[in-house]
C-alpha cells in the first residue's frame, strides 16, 4: 500500500518560489495517484485569500494552480484555524475548499500521515 504524504505549506504566495514549489510536490504526487494531503499553515494561509491579483506583481496565478489540486486527486486540503484567525482571514471566503482545523485536529492530522514535508 502506498505511503501517504502530508505537504505543509507555510510561506505566503509571493515570498519566493516556495508556495509554488510546495504545490508542485503535491501535483506531482497526485499525478502518480499517491495518497496526499495539503495543509496551509502560518503565512501559507495567505495563499488562500480570495481575489488576489498576482499580475500586479508580475507573478503567475497561484490560485489557479491550487484549484487544480482536486483534479489531480489531492482532495484532502486543510488550513490551520489559528493561522487564519491570527491573519484576519477567519471570516473571509477562501479561494479553495479547505477544512479548517484547530490545533488538536492538526496534531491528529500530522499523526495519521506516513510522511510529512514542510516547506
Amino acid at each position, binding site marked *: 500500500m502506498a505511503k501517504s504524504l502530508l505537504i505543509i505549506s507555510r510561506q505566503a504566495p509571493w515570498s519566493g518560489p516556495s508556495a509554488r514549489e510546495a504545490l508542485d510536490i503535491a501535483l506531482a504526487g497526485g499525478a502518480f495517484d499517491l495518497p496526499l494531503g495539503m495543509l496551509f499553515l502560518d503565512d501559507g494561509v495567505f495563499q488562500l485569500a480570495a481575489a488576489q491579483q498576482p499580475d500586479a506583481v508580475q507573478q503567475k496565478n497561484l490560485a489557479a494552480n491550487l484549484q487544480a489540486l482536486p483534479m489531480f486527486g489531492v482532495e484532502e486540503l486543510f488550513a490551520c484555524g489559528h493561522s487564519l484567525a491570527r491573519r484576519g482571514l477567519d471570516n473571509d471566503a477562501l479561494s479553495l475548499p479547505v477544512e479548517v482545523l484547530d490545533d488538536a485536529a*492538526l*496534531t491528529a492530522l*500530522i499523526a495519521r500521515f506516513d510522511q510529512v514535508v514542510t516547506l
Partner: protein
Amino acid sequence: MTTLHVIAHSPFGDERLASCLRLLGPQDALLLCGDAIYALKAGTEPFAALQAANLGERLFALAEDLQARALDSQLAKAVDYPAFVELTLHHDKVNSWL
C-alpha cells in the same frame, strides 16, 4: 504514529517553534539544531515556552550547535549525528520545519 520534529531556525522573530509547540503530539519529539539552539538560552521567551511545553525526555539538541554557540542544554538532551540517525528511526516519521 509519532513524529520527530526538526527545527533549525532562530526562535526570535520566527514562527516555527511556536507553531511546532502548538501542534506537537504527546509522543512526538523535537530536535533543535542550527540557530534553533538559541531557544535554549535561559531567561528568554522561547526558553520559557520550551519549559512550559514540558517535553521532558522528548527534547533534543544537536551537540555541535550547542558547542558552537557555547550554550548549555539544561532542558534538551545533546545528540551527535549517529544519535540523530537513531532518533529518526525511533519515531515513525520526520518533519523538518524548513
